[in-house]
């Protein structure tokens, strides 16, 4: 019998939303407890700051350039490599429960299998990307996924209670709600037990209950929250009074200071803030960040924290069932997310081509199976989501195949130094309706450097350079600072030397998201 693996992911969750990472708004005792008894990573980065590329990296163990999903809307090929398939071939029972998003969700033709499963939970042929059990959910009750079907069948009165994620033009909705009219905030009267967070936990428990005690298993439990819309069950919103929530440290309240910080960055930052450029689909096209108020930031953060608390409690229920099944000592638990959320930093919300900690610094916790007798630790070396798939192989006693580009996560900083965890890369390529933006970022030795390729509003000479020790909020762009020329040249050369190979031919954008 091998060690079992529970991969828990959330969607668009910041590093600082967990108590164990210094968060003070949400109470997250379950995940904090995993961190206390396991390994907590302080510098874990995604290889893309949007969902589809990042989730494809988790599954394939490859950078976006290599697996080919360069932006939301580019489907991961069905024959792409999959760590779940490796584990399944090795005898693991496998399940993906919650949000998948390896294929576009906006799919009226139902061309993509993730949308076309109907009520089936076992895919045709016995498995899909190595998963033999599939139950899908996304951020609301619309669409063809299992959660939407379940809610429509069991609680049809709740379907209309959610925020409408897309507007009548199928753009990300800019409508505001709550007390402050913040975008994507909404009062949702749904009963807590019907909300997708608890549904994901319920379905995970049901699948675990279907297994034999001696089965080896890999379960990816994928919560759609705390990604916007911020519409948690209203019964739970009273946990945190938004008026008591402090403004985040990353939010410069003084408008002149905020805009001066933006002006020191490549011009697409300020252009989006002012509403003169929309470069990607993931933020509401009709919302202008400059209109964001301090109270809206507070309310967004409060509701986000409520969603984080609900996730933490849902994880607690699943772990309790793991214990009841007698698996506690043999289960490795990994908690992370696909990317972060701006959540008020620099006066911005949502996500886009902005490679700063708000979007890149992720919560990552690995609680090895107690039977493995691992030591608790905190890892400060840079690691990436690209390292997850090799880690699963290591846990299962499998050799990581050559197509994986990461390495099994280090168990402490000494291990990281010995095995060469020096740098982590993140990339962005968007091409939408005549606007393209291209970023390549390296994080190494306490610095973050981003280079720009030629695009609609960039000539290719722009860049960002931040000293994480002196400037943890990345407010002071040192790209043009003569005293930093040496580190800039060194990091740029290192970035170019370590860029992953590109998939050929380039995959096409097939949908907005």
């Amino acid at each position, binding site marked *: 019998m091998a060690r079992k693996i529970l991969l828990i992911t959330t969607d668009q969750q910041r590093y600082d939303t967990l108590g164990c990472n210094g968060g003070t708004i949400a109470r997250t005792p379950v995940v904090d407890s995993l961190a206390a008894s396991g390994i907590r990573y302080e510098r874990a980065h995604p290889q893309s700051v949007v969902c589809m590329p990042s989730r494809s990296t988790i599954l394939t163990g490859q950078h976006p350039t290599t697996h080919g999903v360069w932006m939301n*809307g580019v489907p991961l090929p069905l024959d792409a490599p999959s760590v779940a398939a490796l584990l399944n071939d090795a005898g693991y029972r496998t399940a993906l429960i919650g949000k998948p998003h390896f294929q*576009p969700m*906006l*799919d*009226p*033709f*139902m*061309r993509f299998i993730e949308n*076309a499963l109907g009520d089936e939970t076992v895919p045709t042929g016995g498995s899909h990307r190595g998963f033999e059990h599939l139950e899908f959910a996304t951020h609301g009750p619309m669409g*063809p996924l299992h959660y939407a079907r379940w809610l429509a069948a069991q609680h049809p009165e709740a379907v209309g209670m959610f925020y409408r994620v897309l507007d*009548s*033009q*199928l*753009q990300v909705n800019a409508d505001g709600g709550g007390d402050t009219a913040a975008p994507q905030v909404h009062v949702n009267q749904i009963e807590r037990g019907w909300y997708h967070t608890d549904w994901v936990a319920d379905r995970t428990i049901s699948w675990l209950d279907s297994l034999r005690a001696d089965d080896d298993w890999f379960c990816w439990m994928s919560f759609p929250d705390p990604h916007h819309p911020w519409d948690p069950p209203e019964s739970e919103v009273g946990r945190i009074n938004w008026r008591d929530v402090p403004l985040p440290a990353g939010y410069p309240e003084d408008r002149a200071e905020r805009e001066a910080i933006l002006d020191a960055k490549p011009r697409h930052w300020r*252009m989006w803030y002012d509403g*003169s*450029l*929309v470069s990607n*689909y993931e933020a509401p*096209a009709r919302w202008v960040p400059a209109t964001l108020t301090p109270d809206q930031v507070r309310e967004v953060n409060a509701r986000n924290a409520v969603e984080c608390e609900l996730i933490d409690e849902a994880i607690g229920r699943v772990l309790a069932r793991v214990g009841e099944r007698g698996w506690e000592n043999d289960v490795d638990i990994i908690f992370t997310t696909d990317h972060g959320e701006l959540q008020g930093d620099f006066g911005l919300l949502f996500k886009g081509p902005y490679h700063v900690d708000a979007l890149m610094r992720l919560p990552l916790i690995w609680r090895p199976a107690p039977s493995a007798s691992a030591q608790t630790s905190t890892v400060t070396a840079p690691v990436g989501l690209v390292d997850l798939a090799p880690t699963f192989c290591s846990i299962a006693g499998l050799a990581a195949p050559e197509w994986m580009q990461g390495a099994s996560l280090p168990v402490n900083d000494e291990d990281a130094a010995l095995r060469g965890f020096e740098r982590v890369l993140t990339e962005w390529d968007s091409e*939408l*309706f*005549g*606007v393209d933006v291209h970023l390549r970022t390296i994080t190494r030795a306490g610095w973050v450097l981003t280079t720009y390729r030629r695009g*609609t509003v960039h000539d290719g000479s722009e860049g960002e350079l931040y000293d994480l020790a002196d400037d943890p909020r990345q407010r002071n762009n040192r790209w043009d600072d003569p005293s930093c020329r040496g580190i800039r040249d060194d990091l740029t050369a290192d970035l170019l030397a370590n860029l992953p190979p590109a998939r050929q031919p380039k995959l*096409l*954008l*097939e*949908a*907005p998201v």
Partner: protein
Amino acid sequence: MTAPRASIRREVRIRSGADEIWEWVGNPSRLPEWWPGITACVVDGDSRTITMGSGLPMPEQLLTVDRLQRRFQYRITAPIFREHTSTIDVHDLGDGTTLVVYSVDADPSTMALVIGGAAGNALQELRSLVEGKS
């Protein structure tokens, strides 16, 4: 910087003559044969209604069916579109291959990508069907 109207273009080169390709593309009733995700299609004069895999109907108006230029154009008349024109051009490259270009212009822009993305997939299917047959 963000216009509501968008253009999406997809193309495919097929190892077959233009006349054969036109037999598929120029016949509005044959669309479900080569467009994955279209389950039915009813043509009545210059009106065509397709049914998508989600079950949603999509009403269309045929604008151009020009056998000599090998150009097919239609307009989607569903209310979500403020404006839409799709154009399929079939070009004989003179070397036994044919270039098929599918252009979608639409407002709202999101729908241009929804239709254009699926059209790209359909062109790949068309190539598989034609080249697999020959």
